[in-house]
């Protein structure tokens, strides 16, 4: 009697963090969000944070659905308001690590005001902005990130608005960590995310993602693979440069890299500082994070 070789289903390293019963996900074939989701999971695992202390807050849109697939405390909020919800969560429970994942439209169009004020306050949270250059969930309308001249469903002959430079905006508002990658830079995304999660303060990560179904198709950028090739060919890494100079020009270069990594007291640091002036021994609010040596090299 010979036993047939049975295939052993090996657990995937991300399994403990995934809500496997929620799969299949809603994202289109070729979408970049899955890659980024994988990077987020890896970074959370690498950070060594107690998982009960990590909360994922997301807005509305394709990226907003990320929270639902993650086996953590996950919070899918109203459109554009992920950051205020995350602020409340963080201030009420300072020991938690809050990661906000959302798209460019959610964070910078409807939620722009919340973004700039959270960055100014330096609330300790990590923002992951998936920039797919359009509103994917609603069918591909023009977004604050859509390049000049690009076609979308609401700019059928070309976008007549200039897009934001999110990294420059974040830096100007006071973010302590700013980086930009494309979905192709998997290791760098993961390393940056890890740094951002461990960084005390408002850290911002922009990830350029291909959206073959609604953006790529209308702009004759080809299929998913062509879009990734496009990102690969056009992206140039320029670390430590002023984010103002890190322009995204579809005809020339997409500048990526880690731009800002500074130290600044967080909202809770300052809240404690001011309260201690008046009230003496005010409670230590800040979470205790197992500090790890920085792994990523800029």
């Amino acid at each position, binding site marked *: 009697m010979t036993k047939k070789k049975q295939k052993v289903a090996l657990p995937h390293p991300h399994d403990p963090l995934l*809500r496997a019963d*929620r799969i299949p996900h809603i994202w289109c074939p070729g979408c970049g969000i899955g890659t980024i989701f994988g990077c987020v999971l890896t970074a959370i695992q690498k950070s060594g944070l107690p*998982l*009960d*202390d990590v*909360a994922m*807050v997301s807005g509305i849109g394709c990226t907003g659905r990320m*929270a*639902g697939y993650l*086996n*953590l*405390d*996950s*919070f*899918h*909020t*109203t459109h554009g*308001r992920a*950051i*205020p*919800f*995350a*602020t*409340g*969560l*963080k*201030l*009420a*429970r300072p*020991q*938690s690590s809050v990661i906000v994942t959302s798209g460019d439209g959610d964070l910078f169009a409807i939620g722009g*005001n*919340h973004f700039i*004020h959270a960055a100014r306050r330096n609330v300790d949270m990590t923002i992951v902005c998936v920039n797919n250059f359009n509103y994917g969930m609603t069918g591909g309308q023009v977004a604050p990130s859509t390049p000049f001249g690009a076609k979308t469903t609401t700019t059928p002959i070309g976008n007549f608005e200039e897009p934001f430079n999110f990294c420059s905006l974040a830096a100007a508002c006071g973010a302590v960590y700013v980086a930009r990658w494309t979905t192709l830079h998997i290791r760098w995304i993961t390393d940056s995310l890890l740094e951002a999660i461990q960084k005390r303060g408002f850290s911002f990560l922009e990830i350029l993602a291909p959206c073959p179904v609604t953006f790529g198709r209308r702009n004759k950028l080809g299929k998913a693979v062509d879009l990734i090739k496009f990102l690969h060919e056009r992206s140039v890494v320029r670390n430590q440069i002023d984010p103002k100079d890190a322009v995204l020009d579809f005809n020339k270069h997409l500048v990526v890299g880690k731009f800002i990594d500074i130290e600044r007291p967080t*909202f809770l640091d300052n*809240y404690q500082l001011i*309260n201690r002036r*008046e*009230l003496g021994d*005010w*409670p230590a609010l800040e979470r205790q994070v197992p500090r790890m040596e920085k792994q990523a090299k800029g």
Partner: protein
Amino acid sequence: MVEGALVAGCRFFAGYPITPASEISEILSIKLPRLDGTFIQMEDEIASLGAVIGASLAGVKSMTATSGPGFSLMQENLGFAIMAEVPCVIVNVMRGGPSTGLPTFPSQSDVMQARWGTHGDHPAIALSASTVRECYEMTVKAFNLSEKFRTPVVLLMDEVVAHMREKMVLPDEDDVEVFNRVKPTVPPEWYMPYEDTPRGVPAMANFGEGYRYHVTGLTHDVRGFPTSRPDEIGPFIARLHRKISQHFSEIQMAEFFQTEDAEITIVAYGCVARSARRAMIEARERGIKVGLLKLVTIWPFARSAVEKVLQKSRILLVPEMNMGQISREVKRVNPGVAKVFTLNKVDGTIITPEEILNRITEVA
């Protein structure tokens, strides 16, 4: 008001300055840090209620305070709190509207907004206050109801009540009944954050306690995940309503003043109830049998209280500082046995006892 919030256990406040509700922020900004609480002034009212909901999910009782224009901005997240069943308290110090309206004048024109302001079919709880003591009591009550039913509670005040100064003796903190949300007792893998319990209110775990559940504003199943199955959507929306409707008796509060023999009953709330009481006393001196039904709970509408006064009264008078928002409800529940008269005033001044008295003599 503020004392009531603190006694009830409020330790987080997020707000945005607005006349005539800024005093609540100002006092809480002094008091909250002394109780290890957190005060933050957000960038707008949308963000304020967002932060309040976030803090409440983390297990801290939270509130915000605003006025009409800010309340309009909060409607989005008010709906979220109803949908995701997150307890919180929103104080709306009503001022004249629409739009920027009359920032420093009283009004009662947000009554319907508190009920129907946010989109979708939803239940609502709104309380009102007419004295300083009631501000205290109703704030405690608002927190208790919100924790008990996992729903946001709106406390409607008007500019007059909010700026009123009256003496009151604060009750001993131990005598104040404070209700905290029911925590799950099951292990995390069994936890159903939106399960249909007999009471209609599922147990609520706080973020960070290891239950790791999903909170969304999308229509969700019992585990909290988005669903598009009709057999899950229907029961969920039905439960949202049922958890309030099957506890009407716990929520609906009203006070009766000499309604036993009243031929005319005034139905009033907020600062108008004070004028109405005075008018009632003066009318009785003139020999007109007038009673007063003071609505404390505005929503859900105290139908049973109105039905009770309808057993005797054949004339109802509803004075309000709006174009007739509660009188609509009174007319709706009146099966035709009584005549319902209104007294509406929208000029930014309060309704005086004389005006009510005049109206009583008119309709009597």
